[in-house]
């Protein structure tokens, strides 16, 4: 049997499409964890990245945070959190957020730093307050790169959120872990395929968001 047959077998099995272990339920759970982690990471990473980028301060600290947290093993962190906090959503969210903050923070910082300085100078010279300069001049120009950072964070989250299954939670990780345990490779491959499809969908969503959110003037000129 090859992978394609596994995939076919998994998705054509009617029992995989409903119930508490059905694909819709597991997908919804997975999306739920992923979106929550992405939202928390964005709420942390975006403002810090925007403000440090605007003032051009703290670049070294950001680089340090970025390398430091990349060195942290996500799975190790999960185990640590479970030992510390017990089972539940919290121990899963923390490693996912730790994973997602650096790409968001670093690209946002870099994106704001790399905005053409002359419109910023012009804006300041015409009496625009700093907050407006950041939100109305720098952010629109930096948006394509910032969305790129969010996109890589989102894809990392989507593929890593499978760890939720290790601590007894749901999500697509369930198929992979249960499948491995039951030596049901059809399930493992099916789960992995779902993760891959979800990552592709994430790419598509970010492409669509960029189409809508990025001004044609920036898209075409940059």
């Amino acid at each position, binding site marked *: 049997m090859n992978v394609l047959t596994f995939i076919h077998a998994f998705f054509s099995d009617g029992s995989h499409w409903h119930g508490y272990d059905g694909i819709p339920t597991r997908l919804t759970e997975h999306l739920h964890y992923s979106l929550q982690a992405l939202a928390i990471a964005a709420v942390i990473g975006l403002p810090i990245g925007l403000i440090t980028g605007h003032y051009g301060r703290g670049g070294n600290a950001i680089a340090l945070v970025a390398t430091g947290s990349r060195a942290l093993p996500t799975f190790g962190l999960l185990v640590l959190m479970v030992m510390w906090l017990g089972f539940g959503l919290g121990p899963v969210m923390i490693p996912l957020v730790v994973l997602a903050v650096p790409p968001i923070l670093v690209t946002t910082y870099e994106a704001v730093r790399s905005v*053409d300085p*002359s*419109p*910023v*100078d*012009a*804006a*300041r*010279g*015409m*009496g*625009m*307050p700093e907050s*407006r300069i950041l939100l109305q*001049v720098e952010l*629109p*120009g930096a948006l394509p790169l910032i969305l790129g950072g969010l996109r890589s964070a989102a894809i990392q989250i989507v593929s890593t959120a499978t760890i939720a299954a290790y601590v007894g939670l749901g999500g697509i990780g369930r198929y992979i872990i249960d499948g491995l345990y039951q030596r049901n490779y059809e399930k493992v491959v099916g789960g992995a395929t779902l993760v891959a499809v979800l990552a592709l969908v994430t790419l598509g969503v970010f492409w669509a968001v960029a189409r809508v959110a*990025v*001004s*044609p*003037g*920036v898209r*075409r*000129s*940059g």
Partner: protein
Amino acid sequence: MIRIDSVTKRYPDGTVAVDRLSLEIPDRSITVLVGPSGCGKTTTLRMINRMVEPSEGTITLDGVDISRQPVNSLRRSMGYVIQNAGLFQHRTIVDNIATVPRLLGQSKARSRARARELMERVGLDVSLAKRYPYQLSGGQQQRVGVARALAADPPVLLMDEPFSAVDPIVRKGLQEELLRIQEELGKTIVFVTHDIDEAIRLGTMVAVLRTGGRLAQFAPPAELLSSPADAFVEDFLGADRGIRRLSFFPAQALELKKTPIVAVDSTAEQIAARTTPETPYLLVTGLDGRPLGWSEPEDLVAGDIDVARLLPYGRPFAYGTDSLRAALDGAVLSPTGWAVAVDDAGRAVGVVSQQAVGEAIRAAHAKGLTAAKVAG
């Protein structure tokens, strides 16, 4: 009036960009700051809208120390135009121009209506309103920059090398446009350039700065050309200062000779009547009065004038609007050594020799006649 009073700017690294500079910038006229690269022009300009704070000295606007005014409202009362326009790439042209009215709390609709009005004022087709900056040429972008600076109708306009990134022909167009706008609006403009020709063309007053941020001379352009304060200014003005100075003397000071002009259908008697000993050549004109070319009188056969064999007449000058510089240029370019004066419609109104131009130059210098600046 903007008054700069013994202002010094020392940057944190110790560079003294401006050194005890004092200038009185007159209202409703163009004051140009000119000088070599790094002499402190931009620093001076940016101290006026407090983008840079002076280390010593004060700047007052209508008698009020600007350091006591809220910085953003001060800036909103001064238009600011920079070298590469600094347009907001993510906003359409009309929204770029509407920025300051929007900042001042005007409605979107009103700000946009105002922006469209300004597009016309600066010579931009309103059909460009919905475009993005990348869809415009450099010269058009610069016009947008000027329109954006004018949008809230500020009394003061600060311009930092606004036209230096475009080619010479576009630059000339932008300069003419600025002079026209200035005639209509009468702003107090402070204009930075490193191009002395631009300074002379645009300035009502020109401040020449030397490296180290010291004022070398502050004078109207004609005075700068006629009496540079020192060797530095003289050097900065360049080699053909004498020729350029002629731009300030109207060609109308010339006494034109009207006799040696014959129409292409002249009779032998008419040709003979117009031939005089002091004019070795006759200017042949078409039936519409426009010049066709020069000829020696004996080569002209009445009723059979061969236009192709006439000598070229070089570049005519407009008697009413051009300067002695244009007249001299016309005389130098003409193979006969005579310049042709034309009226607004391009009809020959007289001719003048190199000698006569030279005499007029000497007379003008003697009188120190520096009437209003004339074109060309």
